[in-house]
């Protein structure tokens, strides 16, 4: 077993260290549904103590990847090694040591918070008590309430409690904050950060950029079943060579503005036209904006809108694929 792991490392040449010591080591993962290739030869390493994000639009293969890792879906090809264990041989042990929160699971509405957590607790060899976990997700006041009466955020924290109750070494969260209001999202984020600060491993999928930037040490951007970019959020943003974005619109009928002229402006890296507006990737904001004003007033084109923001993972995704993450 050990020997074979060395071989895998040598073959791929990706990791100089032992892959079996990595919490997650995925090689050549492939899954085909009838005629759709959901995951297409994916390699993935998660380092110890890391919060790793899988980012991508719907249908990118994030959920399929994570469900293969959770042992819920068998892969067509490739290997998955978690905590040095494999599903083929160590399924029971793996289930004891993974914490799982699935997309859109509805826990039984007729049970109370307490009863639900105690049920899940009974499946695990060891871990905190039900009341400790309920305190961890801040549902003490609701511990006797029926699940059916909880808000969306509370339900999500209960799902987290069920994932944490076995004291997992590795936590899988599939879109943990989808559909939650901003306050509930922040509560879930706090929870994930606390788990992270205990030095445990988290893999989460999301299509929210701010979530990935805030929580993840490293992010893999997925599209069409493949990883198209991998790195820390900062590295990925830096990779598009621009730190800021400038978006502006002009009065109808005065355009179009010459994109080539815009790209020649001081500090502007890339200019593109999108939905009638313009977007500039900019390295030095103060010089680029001044140059833009000069250019537009020289051509007597009045501005109707001007916005700037720091480049985000969303911009990374757009520059990699030409599409927005939330496009359906």
């Amino acid at each position, binding site marked *: 077993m050990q020997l074979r792991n060395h071989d895998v490392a040598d073959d791929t040449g990706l990791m100089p*260290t*032992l892959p*079996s*010591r*990595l*919490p997650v080591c995925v090689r050549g993962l492939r899954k085909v549904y009838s005629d759709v290739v959901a995951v297409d030869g994916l390699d993935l390493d998660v*380092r*110890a*103590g890391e919060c790793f994000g899988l980012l991508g639009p719907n249908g990118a293969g994030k959920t399929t990847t994570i469900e293969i890792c*959770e*042992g*819920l879906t068998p892969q067509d090809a490739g290997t998955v090694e978690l*905590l*040095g264990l494999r599903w083929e041989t160590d399924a*029971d042990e793996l*289930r*004891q*040591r*993974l914490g*799982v929160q*699935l997309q*859109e*699971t*509805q*826990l*039984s509405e*007729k*049970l109370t918070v307490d*009863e639900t957590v*105690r*049920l*899940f*607790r*009974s*499946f*695990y*060899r*060891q871990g905190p008590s039900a009341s400790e976990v309920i305190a961890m997700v801040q549902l003490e006041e609701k511990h006797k309430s029926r699940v059916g009466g909880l808000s969306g955020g509370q339900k999500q924290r209960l799902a987290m409690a*069920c994932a944490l109750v*076995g004291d997992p*070494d590795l936590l899988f969260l599939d879109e943990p904050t989808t559909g939650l209001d901003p306050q509930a999202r922040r509560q879930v984020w706090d929870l994930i950060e606390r788990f992270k600060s205990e030095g445990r491993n988290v893999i989460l999928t999301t299509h929210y950029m701010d979530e990935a930037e805030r929580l993840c040490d490293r992010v893999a951007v997925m599209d069409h079943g493949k990883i198209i970019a991998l790195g820390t959020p900062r590295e990925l943003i830096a990779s598009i060579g621009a730190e800021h974005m400038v978006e502006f619109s002009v009065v109808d009928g005065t355009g179009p503005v010459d994109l080539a002229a815009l790209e020649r402006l001081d500090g502007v890296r890339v200019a593109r036209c999108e939905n009638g507006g313009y977007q500039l990737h900019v390295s030095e904001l103060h010089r680029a904006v001044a140059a833009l004003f000069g250019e537009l007033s020289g051509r007597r084109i009045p501005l109707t809108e001007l916005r700037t923001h720091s480049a985000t993972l969303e911009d990374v995704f757009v520059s990699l694929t030409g599409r927005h993450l939330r496009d359906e």
Partner: protein
Amino acid sequence: MSEGTVLVETREIRPAAGRRPFIEHSLVQLTLVRFREFWREPEAVFWVFVFPILLTTGLGIAFRNRPADVVKVGAVGPQLAGAMRTNKSLSVELLDRAAGEQALRAGRIVLLAVPAADGVVTYRYDDTNPEGRNAKLLVDRTVQHAAGAHDPVAAADDLVREPGSRYIDFLVPGLLGMNLMGSGIWGLGFAIVDARRKKLLKRLIASPMPRSQYLLSFLLARLAMLYIEVAALIGFGAWVFGVPVRGSLWELAILCLLSSLSFSALGLLTASRVRTIEGASGLMNFIMLPMWIFSGVFFSSDRFPNMLQPFVRALPLTAVIDALRAQILQGVSLSQLTPQLAIITGWLVVCFFTALKLFRWR
């Protein structure tokens, strides 16, 4: 790699889990969940416990054995009326001729006895009405006896009204069988399909829950509920209608257990793949409808033509109800019910193993 080493070590230094209290065992917790989900669903409680008792009450009252009816007749003349009153099953009204005719036409009396001149008695009644013919026989016999007639053959009545042969006695085991079927198929089927639809099954199998315990918890909860259900219905029948339980209670318990397991297996099979409540509902009705019709819940399944009998006999509910009727009403022991028990067991085995083969957790 140092992190990796730490990772493996944390696992090893963790203390082994001590003996956990009984209540925290996963099978106990799963079974408790079944009970909680059931008792917190008022409709389920109604259909399983209250409805069969309401149905028994309603049908028991509708088909009760009435005391022999008193026949209302009229007589013209006090002497004839006096003679007729010697029979307790006649209610005799003394009327004059015109009033008598009027009462007959209005249906207040079914027969009018009119004395004629030379000692002849005329009975006015409608001979197409069975009640009229019955009244004529009764009145004539009473009048003849009052005038001194004697029966050439001595006869005595031996009335059969004992519990065990009435419609209500026939009905209670039938309803019990129907209830065992309903709660087995619905109870298991809906709960599983609902959990699958909500992706709860998928969440559970992502945890280390032993999968067999999930299914086992349904059977355990079913068994506990089963005895409350059976005791409620049989107890109600015995207390209100005096329905006898002639077989041994021990054997009745075994018979109910086997029947319920068999229907639960059928429920499991029904729920093994379906993903929506609508789909499950349709499939369950499709499976149960023939049994509601053919299995003799409300009337004997012998009434169906011979051509249909092999089909009718092969239905699990027919076997269950036949066995329950024989056991409860006639006190037949289980050793004499081998054919029925074989059919019930056959369904149990076939359904259970097919369900295990087909079952999808997601």
